[in-house]
């Protein structure tokens, strides 16, 4: 018998997870499949972690609408799902007089889009607010509704809340093809078997083009990976309190300087088109580009304090804007196409995709309702997902109490980020189990500090092995084919 669902969501990024959480509110069976060993492995995992105010997207585009609708949803969302989010506001910084007109353009665009709380700041005001900024700054656009979040925490919280409310999540499960009855989609084939369904929701990010092509939709639509490289700095050496954008250019929002909610300064990204959808390799040239770009905003950056670097891939699409009279070819696709039945099609969800994700989830629900889907609210739906304890953020007193309850919280495994065995074990046994090193890293921030796991790695591998009841040889960094260890030391030639 084929396992049957009302909805199957393809892709466990922030958009897929938000949709799962939104659908979990209704009386319907939902399956989310993710091809990787964890959720939040694609574009959602490597970005600037900013909740954008909304002055950047082109007025009239779906991007602009989703951004503007999405931004105010974050306060309630972070409250319900207990993920860290701070509305710190952000700055677009003009360096030199010649960049000042760029700020006016953005201000105008923001007003048309309907962004509240924007203000022009003078040179003196900017210098007073951020001590590390380039002294040649000429002014800045301030947007009070900009915010920062932890994109892993957001995605994981949304997916967990969905699971709490009955959604099934299958990891390591990749879409292979649709099962059709005429022009109606009735299921999907995956590497882990077939599943029946009434609706498939395409939130496959980088691969959304391939999925819609399999359904026969939009053959001209292609996703190109647009790479962005980043550096992360040791928070003990440098703290930047604010989100600082440069004045945008044709290439995009530009190389910014921002801070994570953990206090680490981040610089990046550049914008380079790649060919490979999985190529997350940094390049010498790219790293140099972001270095120079960031130095223009914050000259005191010091290479010595870099502790990590990574690449994010933006799923850059060629979806045309639907608004009449606007010639824009890189808009979001959020639609229920008429060529096939039972398909919600999303594509090209790049920045501000994180900001827009709750709005997109709501949009999907609205589209389904418009399509005649009778979504009946569950009585027992629980919108609240509680965060698990984070030793690092606790007071001495709270720590004491926590360890009294579970002594494993007394054993610190990651010295730089103060992550305990208790937290690691809790994540391994969470509603969406973290079974790889990277999955634990993204949830607890172990190994993200200045020693980059040099100390904790052997200990964490042991804990994962013990908790899962497997050999350390089976423990991986990020899923199949990424085992840390090859063989026992003494088994030569085995």
């Amino acid at each position, binding site marked *: 018998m084929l396992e049957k669902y009302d909805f199957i969501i393809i892709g466990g990024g922030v958009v897929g997870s938000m949709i799962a959480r939104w659908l979990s509110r209704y009386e319907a069976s939902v399956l989310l499949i993710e091809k990787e060993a964890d959720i939040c492995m694609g574009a959602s995992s490597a970005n600037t972690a900013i909740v954008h105010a909304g002055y950047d997207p082109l007025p009239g585009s779906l991007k602009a609408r989703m951004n503007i609708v999405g931004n105010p949803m974050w306060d309630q969302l972070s409250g319900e799902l207990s993920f860290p989010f701070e509305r710190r506001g952000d700055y677009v910084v003009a360096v030199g007089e010649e960049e000042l007109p760029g700020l006016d353009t953005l201000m105008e665009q923001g007003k048309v889009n309907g962004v509240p709380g924007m203000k022009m700041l003078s040179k003196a005001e900017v210098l007073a607010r951020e001590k590390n900024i380039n002294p040649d700054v000429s002014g800045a656009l301030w947007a009070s509704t900009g915010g920062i979040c932890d994109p892993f925490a957001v995605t994981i919280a949304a997916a967990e809340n969905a699971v709490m409310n009955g959604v099934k999540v299958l990891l390591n499960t990749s879409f292979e093809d649709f099962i059709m009855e005429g022009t109606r989609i009735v299921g999907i084939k995956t590497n882990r078997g077939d599943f029946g369904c009434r609706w498939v929701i395409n939130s496959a990010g980088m691969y959304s083009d391939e999925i819609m092509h399999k359904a026969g939709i939009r053959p001209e639509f292609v996703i190109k990976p647009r790479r962005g490289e980043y550096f992360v700095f040791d928070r003990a050496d440098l703290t930047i309190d604010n989100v600082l954008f440069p004045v945008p250019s044709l290439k995009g929002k530009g190389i910014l300087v921002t801070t994570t909610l953990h206090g680490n300064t981040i610089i990046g990204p550049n914008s380079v088109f790649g060919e490979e959808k999985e190529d997350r390799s940094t390049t010498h040239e790219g790293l140099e580009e972001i270095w120079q770009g960031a130095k223009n905003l914050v000259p005191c950056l010091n290479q010595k304090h870099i502790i990590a670097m990574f690449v994010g891939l933006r799923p850059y699409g060629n979806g045309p804007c639907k608004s009449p009279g606007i010639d824009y070819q890189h808009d979001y696709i959020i639609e229920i196409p008429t060529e096939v039945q039972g398909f919600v099609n999303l594509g090209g969800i790049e920045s501000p995709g994180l900001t827009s994700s709750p709005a997109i989830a709501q949009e999907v629900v609205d589209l389904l309702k418009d399509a005649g889907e009778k979504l009946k609210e569950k009585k027992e739906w629980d919108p609240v997902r509680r965060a698990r304890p984070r030793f690092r953020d606790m007071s001495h007193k709270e720590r004491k109490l926590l360890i009294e309850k579970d002594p494993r919280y007394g054993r610190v495994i990651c010295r730089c980020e103060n992550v305990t065995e208790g937290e690691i074990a809790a994540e391994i046994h969470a509603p969406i189990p973290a079974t790889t090193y990277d999955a634990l890293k993204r949830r607890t921030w172990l190994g993200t500090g200045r020693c980059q796991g040099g100390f904790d790695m052997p200990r964490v591998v042991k804990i994962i092995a013990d908790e899962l009841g497997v050999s350390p040889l089976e423990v991986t960094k990020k899923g199949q084919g990424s085992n840390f260890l090859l063989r*026992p*030391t*003494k088994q*030569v030639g085995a």
Partner: protein
Amino acid sequence: MEELKKLICISCPQGCTLEVTVEGKTVLKVDGESCKQGIEYAEQEITDPRRMIASTVQVKNGYHPLVPVYTKMPIPKNTIKNVLKELRKVELTAPVALGTVVIKNVLGTGIDVITSRDMPTRTAEQDHFLK
């Protein structure tokens, strides 16, 4: 025929560069040494090169799965590979004390391989921490 050979003395961390004049396997002259160990090393290295070897052997029920071992004296260089092979066959049972002979007179070299630390049993170690 006389020959000049360059060696680096490994007797101590200083690592002096030695210029050794040899004829066949006979050392005629040593230059560049900072102490008499250099001369001894040159003599040894030309006639019978030897090395200290440190590795590990398996230990059953130990706090760690391996216990480190080393050769009490330097062993002939050409026996290293086979000594390592012998060590792979060994399995001790915890507890093991520092200095325990792991292989006596390894491969007839006259030299013992011994452990370089205590290895308590898993439970004893845990008890030890709980005290």
